[in-house]
């Protein structure tokens, strides 16, 4: 399958800190999850791929266009949707007016067609009923959906979502998962998140980052398999475990290198993620 995004050796630093270090990846159709602790470089990678900030080194293409040239960047932006980590709004605009404003900036100049498109994306994120409401009167979850609607304007082939479910209650998160899954049908979605459940439920592929580098790139099942034979239950906290916690049943669940004869249990994606970080030298307890 031809990749939607193809990146080679992307590096970027802020001051003396390297935020991205020689990152190469290829993204194809479907939802790819991007996991990593705070400061791993996830947001930086997303911003680079969304053309919001240029890299210091390396190159990438999106849908065959090179954003390293002014014309190429313009082309990429015509076919890209971007939901930043903390989307900002003009609070006095209604949901419709704001998405319409973004649609104009996305060069949809025909008024009738643009308004149809704005209604379509607002309906797609279930905001059709409140499209005339001012953004300052909407809840946090609704605002997130306004931003998602704005990113979906123009039916982009590549969608970049930076922690879209952060700060949402469980019901809103479920709703958002549904929206992202729908958005992933027929397009390439890169989803940055701290929620391993989001990745397990939505993604056909997962990338783990730490220290500005890619530490894992594979399927969620492969990430889970990293922890195969490395998760066990015990009556007391095992001091040799990389991480351990008391479960609801009163026993301890441990992750790391099990002692001989340990009561091994099935790993989860989160176990695989924690051990991947540990293998990369990241303090697991802090992850």
């Amino acid at each position, binding site marked *: 399958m031809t990749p939607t995004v193809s990146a080679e050796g992307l590096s970027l630093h802020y001051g*003396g800190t390297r935020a991205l270090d020689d990152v190469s990846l290829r993204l194809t159709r479907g939802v790819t999850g991007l996991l990593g602790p705070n400061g791993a470089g996830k947001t930086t990678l997303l911003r680079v791929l969304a*053309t919001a900030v240029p890299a210091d080194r390396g190159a990438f293409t999106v849908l065959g266009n090179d954003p390293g*040239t002014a014309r190429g960047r313009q082309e990429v*932006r015509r076919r890209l949707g971007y939901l930043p980590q903390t989307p900002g709004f003009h609070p*006095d*605009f209604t949901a419709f007016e704001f998405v319409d404003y973004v649609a*104009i900036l996305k*060069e949809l100049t025909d008024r009738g067609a643009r308004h149809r498109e704005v209604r379509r994306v607002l309906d797609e994120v279930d905001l059709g009923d409140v499209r005339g409401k001012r953004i300052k009167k909407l809840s946090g979850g609704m605002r997130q959906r306004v931003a998602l609607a704005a990113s979906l304007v123009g039916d982009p082939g590549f969608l970049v979502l930076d922690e879209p479910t952060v700060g949402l209650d469980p019901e809103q998160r479920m709703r958002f998962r549904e929206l992202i899954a729908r958005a992933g049908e027929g397009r390439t979605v890169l989803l940055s998140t701290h929620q391993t459940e989001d990745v397990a439920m939505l993604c056909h592929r997962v990338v783990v980052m730490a220290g500005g580098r890619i530490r894992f790139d594979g399927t969620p099942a492969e990430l889970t398999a990293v922890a195969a034979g490395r998760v066990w239950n015990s009556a007391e906290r095992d001091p040799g475990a990389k991480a351990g916690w008391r479960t609801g049943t009163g026993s301890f669940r441990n992750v790391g290198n099990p002692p001989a004869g340990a009561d091994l249990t099935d790993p989860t994606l989160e176990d695989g993620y924690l051990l991947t970080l540990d293998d990369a030298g990241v303090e697991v307890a802090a992850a």
Partner: protein
Amino acid sequence: MRLTGALLVPVLRTLPWRALGAAGAVGLLIVSMARLTDEADEMLALNLLRAAALAFALGLAFVLDDPARHTTAAVPTRRPARHALRVALVAPVTAAWWTAALLLVPDGIRPPVGDVTLEAGAAFTLALAAASAAIRLTQAAEPGQAVAGAVLTTAVLGLLLWPGRWELFVGTQDPKWAAAHDRWGMVLVGAVVVWGVCGPEPLRRRVFLKPTRA
């Protein structure tokens, strides 16, 4: 052209009218003192106009503020075009306000209009250039407050510490008046250059520091 037409109304609504209104009102209040004081002379009128221009420049520092900056970071409409539209919409308001400020000064003590307008234009452009630089160099969506603070500080320090031989703030009777206004012209050109350089989004970042591992 169609794009500009479609953007007119939404951009008009996103402009910082409150900041501009407050700055404009303060500026006019300052200039009106020339009418309220019996002992007003040309020097006082000049300084009042300078203070009023500075007040309005502080309002202009907010013109490029955009709370939706990050949400619209990856749209194809280029940043310089969006900024140019904002400035174009504010320009007639600025011109009308400055005309009103000049008219508030009684005829007899009004300083040379062209020269004092050059000073005001340089101050306005400096504020816009500083806002543009703040957007280029930082991730702030609304740098207006910081930019206004920096413009005010620069004005005060400039007044106190500017080298005498390159004096900018001279009186109308001062023999250095013409030379000072050549320098004001250079300040204006410099501000336009900074504005022009900071406007476009870079395709590459420049590396000044050697990075370490994250």
